[in-house]
Every structure is written in structure tokens, then in C-alpha cells.
């Protein structure tokens, strides 16, 4: 499958990267990391221009994240309706919003590159829970720059070992995302367990 993808990058160049970055930030399952690796490899061989490749991928990713964020904002009205309809849920919703407003920008930052498979969800949640647009855009753009430069740089550096790097990168990204989810769920379990233990003791 990766051969077909590499062929596409050779045919369409930077434009393909922009489109695929945009789509993958909106949860469309496109193997963008592979395409960026191939883009970097073609930069190393002299087939593509480094500036164009990075700019295209970065702009596509930021535009995709902005779309996700604004979709989340439109969904925020739903949260408000839930809060008015069932007032008992209002405190929970408010608490969630406060948490994202306080710590959300860090989540946005890391979800763009370190645990990138979680990115699209984080954008949506950030928009829905009312994280400020400026704060979101700033951290998101910075994180996407790391994501894009990381993959394109990796493809550039290991251009003559592209198949190997592609395997390793996809696997590592999966490992980090699954690990992050496991960690988050483990954290929630620990909190529940402590509560149960406290209840049992009293």
C-alpha cells in the first residue's frame, strides 16, 4: 500500500500533502504521516522543495484543526441546551469547560504532534468547551509545526531507508496514542477506586 502512496506523492507533490494534512486533522483516515515521510525523502533527492513541502503540510494541518475547532464551537450550543434542559448537569459541564479553559492549551499542543491520533478529538472538544480562539490557534500552530517538521525531517534524514522509517514511525505513533489512552483510563480507574475505598471505609 505504501508504494501507491509514494507514487501519489511523486505525482502530486506538495498539494497532496496539504489536502491530506487537512483531512487527517478532521478524522478522515488518511495516512498523512507516511505521505510526509515520502515528501521529506523527495526533498532529499531533489524532486521537491523543502519550503513548499513544509508550508503546504503545515497550512493544511492548521486549516484542518481550525475547521474542527469551529465545528466544535457550533456543537457548543448543544451543551448549553443540555444545561438548560437538565439543570443538574450544569455543574459538570461548567467544570469540564473550566478544566479545558485552564489546561486545554497544553492538551491542544501535545495532541498535534506527540499523540497526534488524538488531535481531531481534542480540536473538537476545545471548540465545544469554549477554549479561546487565540490561545487555541497559537498552541495548535506551534504543535503542528513540530509535527510537520518532525515527519518531513525524518523522511529527509532517512530518505534512503524510507520503507523502514515508514514502518517504525507508524508503529511509534500508534504506541504513543494507545499508551496515552491507557494512561488516561488508568487515571480515571484510580480515582474511582479511591472513591470506592473511601466509601467502604466510612
Amino acid at each position, binding site marked *: 500500500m505504501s508504494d501507491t502512496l509514494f507514487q501519489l506523492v511523486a505525482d502530486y507533490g506538495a498539494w497532496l500533502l496539504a489536502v491530506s494534512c487537512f483531512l487527517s486533522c478532521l478524522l478522515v483516515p488518511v495516512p498523512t504521516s507516511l505521505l510526509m515521510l515520502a515528501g521529506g525523502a523527495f526533498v532529499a533527492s531533489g524532486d521537491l522543495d523543502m519550503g513548499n513541502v513544509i508550508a503546504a503540510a503545515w497550512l493544511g494541518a492548521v486549516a484542518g484543526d481550525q475547521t474542527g475547532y469551529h465545528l466544535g464551537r457550533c456543537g457548543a450550543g448543544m451543551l448549553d441546551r443540555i444545561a438548560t434542559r437538565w439543570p443538574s448537569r450544569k455543574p459538570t459541564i461548567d467544570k469540564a469547560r473550566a478544566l479545558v479553559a485552564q489546561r486545554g492549551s497544553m492538551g491542544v499542543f501535545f495532541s498535534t504532534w506527540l499523540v497526534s491520533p488524538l488531535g481531531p478529538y481534542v480540536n473538537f472538544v476545545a471548540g465545544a468547551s469554549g477554549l479561546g480562539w487565540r490561545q487555541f490557534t497559537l498552541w495548535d500552530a506551534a504543535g503542528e509545526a513540530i509535527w510537520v517538521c518532525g515527519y518531513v525531517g525524518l523522511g529527509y534524514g532517512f530518505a534512503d531507508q524510507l520503507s523502514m522509517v515508514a514502518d517504525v514511525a507508524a508503529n511509534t505513533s500508534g504506541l504513543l496514542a494507545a499508551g496515552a489512552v*491507557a494512561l488516561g483510563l488508568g487515571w480515571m480507574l484510580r480515582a474511582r477506586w479511591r472513591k470506592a475505598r473511601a466509601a467502604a471505609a466510612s
Partner: protein
Amino acid sequence: MTRVIGTLKLLWRDNKLLLGAFALALAVTLFFALRSLSFWIYWADPAHRNQAIEPWMTPRYIAHSWHVPPPVVAEAMGLKPGGPRITVADVAEDEDMTVEALVAQIMAAILAHRAERAEAREDRQP
């Protein structure tokens, strides 16, 4: 050990879904970790590191990968050096030949160039 089982039982009683999701996430993490290990073992073998010429490769990419000057590959493919981006598959189609035949042609040119270079090096040595 009994304490761990006790804790798990307690969690299972009240949080079946959460515990199940956690176990699943843990299993997926383990799967990726084992795959990392298998890649590492596979690529540690130098024989697996030679990158064969594939249909998606451009002449410049092949030259970069095999460490030969780009014109060597371009000329073997019947192209002018410094031309636009084109792949082995595209050229094979244009020239109405199989990818295998074109790859063999390129490989022959690369090996010939390497032999030439080795000879030149020997001549230079006293």
C-alpha cells in the same frame, strides 16, 4: 496478589465499561510495543537494509538511495538529466516496457558506474 485481585473485583463490580476499555487500551499498547521489537530485530539484519528499486521511485530518488550521480540513473531510463518529476512506473508505461526490464536496465547502469568508479580509484593508487 490477593489485594490486587480484590481491587480488580471491586473495580469490575462498579466500572465494567471503564475497566474493559482500560484493558483493551493496554492490550493495544502491548501490541504496538511487540511490533516495535519485531521491526528492530528485522532491520538489525544488514541484508534487509538494501532498498530495492520500486515503481514509485523517481530517477533522482534512486540516485540518492544508491549513492550515484543523478545523470547515471536518468540516462539509464532514457531521460534528460534535470527533467521534471517522473517515476519508474511512468517511464515504463511511456516506453511500453515492463517495470522489471526497466529496473534491470537501471541496476546495470548503477553497477557499471560503481565498477568504473572502483577502477578509477585503483588507477589513482600507486
